[in-house]
């Protein structure tokens, strides 16, 4: 019998909040955080930008040396540990594992450096010696260990936009294997600082634009026209249930089911059948039926075909589910890439306490192809006792990841 794994702390930064209480409040009040934004070479666009105070947990030198992803990861990790009420001074740092989901890493730093040497006639003798430690794929997780003096395992989980969920699964499994006693798991994104991601989505016809930046990210709306890219992060403290109980921890919920699978069909196009299978396998792993789920958080990025296909897949799974409600978070915060799954789950966790399913944002006219029964469109809905939340995240190269969290019960 595997150990039960519980969430005991949440630390986050999103374009509309720098902790769970602020974030949840914004989601309930319908406050988005997308702004106009301009980036080198690409020009004007929109983005979700975070305004957490980096110097709360880092020296200026650490910030200068490291990466934005590392800084976000450090902020969220400290906040999660504080939120969990963990006596950090007396934690055995050798028994802490750090598992951070990323969509991509190194693009920002590489683009910056190419730009820098372009100012010197492309003379590589002025290419920074900080390039390698900034761009190694473990960077954000490694920066957390340096900052927090953690000597247990650390690495990132590269899983495109499914990375936030995938890292939660990784953290839970490492606890079950006994590889660590406390897992810091979640996801981060610094993607708004690379022009390449904007240009690539734009050239693929998948980058959103709108006269009003707050209206630009509009998943499931008939007039959606693509993705708004955001930065952000969300880290959780995960513990084995007996350890959490022994220290009298507040328990946000229990990770009771999960699945990672692959489409094996296309570099960018989603596969609704495989997405649905991922959901079904996660339900099976938890011993649940679709009817048991109270809230399903959609991945819904705001692309025309992606949203429609995702909804088509989910409609086939959630048949005759009168107590299952659906919401999507990206209308508020855009697509926080590697952080998306972790952040979007966090936005729903308080539903275990308040029984509210937060709404979507910017669905002025629901696309019929995205219609789902009990889709919460324009105002938070009281839905009674919430026992199960199912969180979906899907990414390029056909990577799907689903996590099911249960309200804690003895």
């Amino acid at each position, binding site marked *: 019998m595997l150990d039960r794994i519980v969430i005991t702390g949440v630390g986050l930064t999103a374009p509309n909040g720098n902790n769970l209480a602020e974030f949840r409040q914004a989601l309930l009040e319908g406050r988005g955080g997308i702004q106009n934004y301009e980036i080198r070479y690409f020009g004007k666009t929109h983005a979700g930008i975070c305004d957490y105070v980096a110097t709360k947990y880092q*020296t*200026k*030198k650490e910030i*200068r*040396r490291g990466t934005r992803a590392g800084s976000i990861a450090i902020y969220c990790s400290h906040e999660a540990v504080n939120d969990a009420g963990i006596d950090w001074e007396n934690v055995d740092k050798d028994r802490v594992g750090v598992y951070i989901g990323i969509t991509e890493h190194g693009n920002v730093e590489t683009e910056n450096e190419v730009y820098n040497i372009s100012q*010197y006639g492309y003379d590589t*003798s*002025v290419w*920074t*010696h*900080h390039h390698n430690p900034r761009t190694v794929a473990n960077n954000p997780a490694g920066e957390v260990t340096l900052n927090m003096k953690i000597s247990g395992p650390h690495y990132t989980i590269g899983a495109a936009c499914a990375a936030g969920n995938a890292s939660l699964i990784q953290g839970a499994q490492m606890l079950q294997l006994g590889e660590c006693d406390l897992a810091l798991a979640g996801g981060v994104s610094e993607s708004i600082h690379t022009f390449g991601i904007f240009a690539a989505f734009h050239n693929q016809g998948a980058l959103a634009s709108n006269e009003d930046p707050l209206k630009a990210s509009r998943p499931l709306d008939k007039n959606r026209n693509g993705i708004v890219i955001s930065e952000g992060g969300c880290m959780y403290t995960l513990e084995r249930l007996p350890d959490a109980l022994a220290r009298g921890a507040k328990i946000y919920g229990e990770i009771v089911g999960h699945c990672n699978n692959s489409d094996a069909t296309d570099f960018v196009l989603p596969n609704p059948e495989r997405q649905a299978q991922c959901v079904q396998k996660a339900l099976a792993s938890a011993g649940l039926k679709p009817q048991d789920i109270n809230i399903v958080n959609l991945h819904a990025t705001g692309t025309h075909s992606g949203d429609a296909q995702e909804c088509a897949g989910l409609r086939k799974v959630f048949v005759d589910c009168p107590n299952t409600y659906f919401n999507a978070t990206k209308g508020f915060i855009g697509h926080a890439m590697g952080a998306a799954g972790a952040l979007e789950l966090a936005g729903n966790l308080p539903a275990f306490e308040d029984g509210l399913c937060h709404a979507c944002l910017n669905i002025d006219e629901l696309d019929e192809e995205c219609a789902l029964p009990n889709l919460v469109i324009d105002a938070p809905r009281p839905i009674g006792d919430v026992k199960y939340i199912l969180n979906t995240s899907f990414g390029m190269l056909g990577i799907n990841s689903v996590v099911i969290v249960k309200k804690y019960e003895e």
Partner: protein
Amino acid sequence: MTKQEIREAVLDILSDIAPDEDLSELKDDVSFREQMELDSMDFLDIVMELRRRYKVNIPEEEYTALGSMSSTVEYLAPKMAEL
């Protein structure tokens, strides 16, 4: 550049590399490392910034000249005199 100007230039670089440090009372004849938290990557930053800003190239075997402010200024004076 005069020695005073070179000192200012080095101080400017140091303030970028070590933004948490108070450099107002830096003692020129005491090594940087005794007064500041500087590691090998920081020293490489000093070398890099001198190259970027002033096109001064410092061979690796001469890095030891950058131990303190006074030794750095002495070392750089002939290289930066014409700037």
